[in-house]
C-alpha cells in the first residue's frame, strides 16, 4: 500500500465478491489499486495508512520501543474461535505484551494465492480490522503480493508490531530468580486442537474452540497494579512444555511444575487422548506463563481472575535453582503419583500415533 498518493484509481467497476484474485491484483496496475482502496483502505482506514506514502510516519513515542514480527499460515483460514485475520493481530500483539509493551501499530503484509475468492479475502480483512480496532492498534502500512496458483495456500499474512514499554517496566528471562512462582493464565491446548480437528475433519465430543485472544489488557492491568512480573512468555507453538524448557535453558534454572494443577479442558483432554498428543506441547494463542516472586502470587491471581482471558489462571510450580550439574534435567513435571518426568523440547511437531 506504499503507493504514490497522486495516482487516482480509474477502474469503474467495484470488486465483486464472487470474483477471484488474479495475478494482476499484485501487478502494480489499476487492479492492484482497486484492491488496495476497496478492500484494505476501506477496512483499515486511519490517518497514517490513508496517507499512502512509501512509509508510514508515526509520532515520537514516550518510552522504549518493542518491535516484533510474525507470519501466519494457518489452515483452515476460519476455525472455531477465530480466523487467520484475528490471529494475525492477536499473535503479534501478544508478543509485544509479553515484554510489557503497550501495542500501538501494526504492519500487514499479504501473500495471496491466485484464485482466492475476493469474498474470503474481504472476510479475513474485515476480521483483522475489527480485531485491531478492539485491541486499540492501528494498521499503518502494508504490502500485497499475488503468487501463482499452487505456490501459496490461499492467504499468508505477516504482521509486524510496534509497542511502547513504560519506563519502569523490565520484563524478561534475565530477571528469572530461584524461588519465582510460575503462573499459567488458563486452560491449555484449545487453539491447537481446535485448528487440528477443524483441518482434519475430526469430530470430538464437546466444543473445541480456539483460545485466540489479546493479552495486552490483562498485562497492562497487572503492571498498573505494580505486580513485579519477572518474565512472561506466550504459549504458542510447542505449548507450555517448550516455553518452560526454553526459559529454563536460558537461565539455566531447574523448574518443577505439578501435573495436577495444570488446567486442561475436558474436550482438549479427550481429543489429545484419542490422538496420542500431549496437551503440554499443543499450541495456544491466548495463554501465557508468568514468573514472579512468591509473595506476589495472590495479588496477581486476583487481578488475573478479573479478566475473561485469564479467569482460570493458576500457580503451577516454581523455579528451583541453578542446576547442580551441567546435565541435570531442567524442567520436571511432578505427576499425581509423586513420580517425576522430564519436559524437554520435542524434536519436531507431535505426530498422531497409530493405535
Amino acid at each position: 500500500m506504499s503507493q504514490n498518493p497522486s495516482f487516482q484509481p480509474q477502474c469503474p467497476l467495484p470488486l465483486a465478491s464472487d470474483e477471484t484474485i488474479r495475478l494482476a491484483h499484485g501487478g502494480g496496475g489499476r487492479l492492484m489499486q482497486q484492491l488496495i482502496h476497496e478492500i484494505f483502505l476501506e477496512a483499515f482506514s486511519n490517518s497514517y495508512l490513508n496517507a499512502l506514502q512509501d512509509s508510514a510516519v508515526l509520532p515520537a513515542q514516550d518510552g522504549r520501543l518493542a518491535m516484533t514480527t510474525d507470519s501466519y499460515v494457518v489452515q483452515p483460514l476460519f476455525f472455531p474461535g477465530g480466523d487467520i485475520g484475528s490471529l494475525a493481530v492477536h499473535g503479534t500483539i501478544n508478543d509485544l505484551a509479553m515484554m510489557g509493551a503497550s501495542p500501538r501499530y501494526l504492519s500487514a503484509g499479504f501473500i495471496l494465492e491466485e484464485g482466492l475468492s475476493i469474498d474470503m479475502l474481504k472476510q479475513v480483512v474485515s476480521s483483522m480490522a475489527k480485531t485491531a480496532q478492539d485491541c486499540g492498534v492501528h494498521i499503518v502500512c502494508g504490502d500485497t503480493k499475488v503468487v501463482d496458483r499452487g505456490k501459496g495456500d490461499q492467504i499468508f499474512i505477516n504482521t509486524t508490531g510496534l509497542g511502547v514499554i513504560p519506563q519502569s517496566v523490565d520484563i524478561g528471562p534475565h530477571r528469572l530468580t530461584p524461588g519465582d512462582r510460575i503462573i499459567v493464565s488458563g486452560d491449555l491446548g484449545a487453539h491447537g486442537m481446535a485448528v487440528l480437528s477443524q483441518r482434519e475433519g475430526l469430530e470430538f465430543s464437546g466444543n473445541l474452540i480456539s483460545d485466540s485472544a489479546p493479552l495486552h489488557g490483562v498485562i497492562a492491568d497487572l503492571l498498573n497494579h505494580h505486580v513485579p512480573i519477572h518474565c512472561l512468555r506466550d504459549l504458542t507453538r510447542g505449548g507450555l512444555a517448550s516455553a518452560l524448557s526454553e526459559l529454563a535453558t536460558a537461565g539455566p534454572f531447574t523448574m518443577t511444575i505439578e501435573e495436577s494443577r495444570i488446567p486442561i479442558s475436558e474436550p482438549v483432554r479427550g481429543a489429545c487422548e484419542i490422538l496420542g498428543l500431549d496437551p503440554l506441547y499443543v499450541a495456544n494463542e491466548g495463554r501465557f506463563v508468568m514468573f514472579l516472586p512468591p509473595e506476589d502470587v495472590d495479588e496477581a491471581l486476583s487481578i488475573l481472575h478479573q479478566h475473561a482471558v485469564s479467569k482460570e489462571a493458576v500457580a503451577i510450580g516454581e523455579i528451583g535453582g541453578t542446576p547442580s550439574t551441567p546435565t541435570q534435567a531442567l524442567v520436571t513435571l511432578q505427576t499425581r503419583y509423586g513420580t517425576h518426568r522430564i519436559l524437554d523440547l520435542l524434536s519436531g511437531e507431535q505426530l498422531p500415533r497409530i493405535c
Partner: protein
Amino acid sequence: MKYLDEFRDSNTVQKLSVAIGQITRHPWTIMEVCGGQTHSIVRYGLDRLLPPGITLIHGPGCPVCVTPIELIDTACELAKLPDVIFCSFGDMLRVPGTHEDLLKVKAQGGDVRIIYSPLDAVAIARANPSRQIVIFAVGFETTAPAQAMAILQAQQLKLQNFFVLVAHVLVPPAMEALLSSPENRVQGFLAAGHVCTIMGYDMYEPISQKYQVPIVVTGFEPVDILEGVKMVVQQLEDGRSIVENQYARSVHRSGNVEAQKVIDEVFEPSSRHWRGIGTIPNSGLALQPAFSQFDALQHFHDCISQTAVTPSPSSECESGRILQGLMKPSDCAAFGTRCTPDHPLGAPMVSSEGACAAYFRYRPSKVTGP
C-alpha cells in the same frame, strides 16, 4: 473424564503400589508387550512405584519400531512417484529408512498425507480419480480391522486407484518367538489390551501352558498397569501360570468376532520380518489372493528396486536387543548422544510408542532427575 480419571486415580495407584510390595517375595522379570503400555509406564514413572525386585522390560509391541527397513525404503520410493498420493499414520513419517524418511520425501515434493483412519484414504482415492493412492498399512491386530474395512470399501466402490502396502504384524507369534529364544528372561507378560479387544485372549492359553508363563491381558492407564503387574506377580509367587484378564471393561475372551471376520476375509497370515528381531513365521498379514489387485507391491512392482536383502541397520543401534527386552534403552552406548529423536539410529527412538523415545522424552539417562 469417565473411563479415564478412575484409572488414573492417585489413591488407587498408591494402594496398588503398596499391595504389590506386600505380595512380592522374589525378584521377577515381567514384559509389557505393547508400546502404549511402555509409554504409560515411563510417562507416569510407574516402574518406580514397584519393589526393587520387579523388573519391567519393554516388549516389541510398537508396530512402527518393528516395520522392516526395506518396507520403509519401498514406502519412500512409492511416495516419490509423481502420480502417487501416499497415505500414512503420522508416526511412520519420521522412521528412518536406509537413506531417508517419509518426511524428507514430502519435503522434496512427494505427496505424503497423514491420515487418521484407513477410511480417509478411501475418501482421498474417490476424490482423486486421476491419482494413485497408496496406504501404508502398519499396525497390530488393533488397526487391521479398519484397514480391512477400507479394502472392502474400495472393492465395493470398484476403485482402481487404491493400493495397500501391507506391513501388519501379529502379537502372539512374536511372544512365542521371545519365549523360545535361549536368551529369554521374561517370566510373565502383560498382554496388549487393545490387541485382545479385537482378537480375544484364548490363543494365549496354549502359550501360557507350553512355556509356563503367566499372561495377564492389561490396559493402558496407571491403575490398569499396576493391577496387571499385581496379577502377574501373584501368579508367579503362587507358582501358577494361566491367562487372566485385567482389562475386562474392554476385552472379552473371544474378542470382537465381527472384526476378526473382516480381518480373515481380507488378510491371511504370512511370514514377516521384524526389524531388529528377524523373520517370524506366520507373524504378519498378507492380502488374500482375492484382494491382490489392491497389493501395492504387485501393482508398482516395476517401480520398486529389489532390496530383498535387509540393509544392515546402524551397527551401533541395539534396537533388536531392546525390542526383545534384553537391554534397556538407557543401557545403549548411543542413547541420548549419537541417537536422539533428531537423529535416530533406529525406529524405537522415533515412534511415540518406541521404548527409546519414551526414555529419551521422559527420563534421558544423560541427565538426572531431581
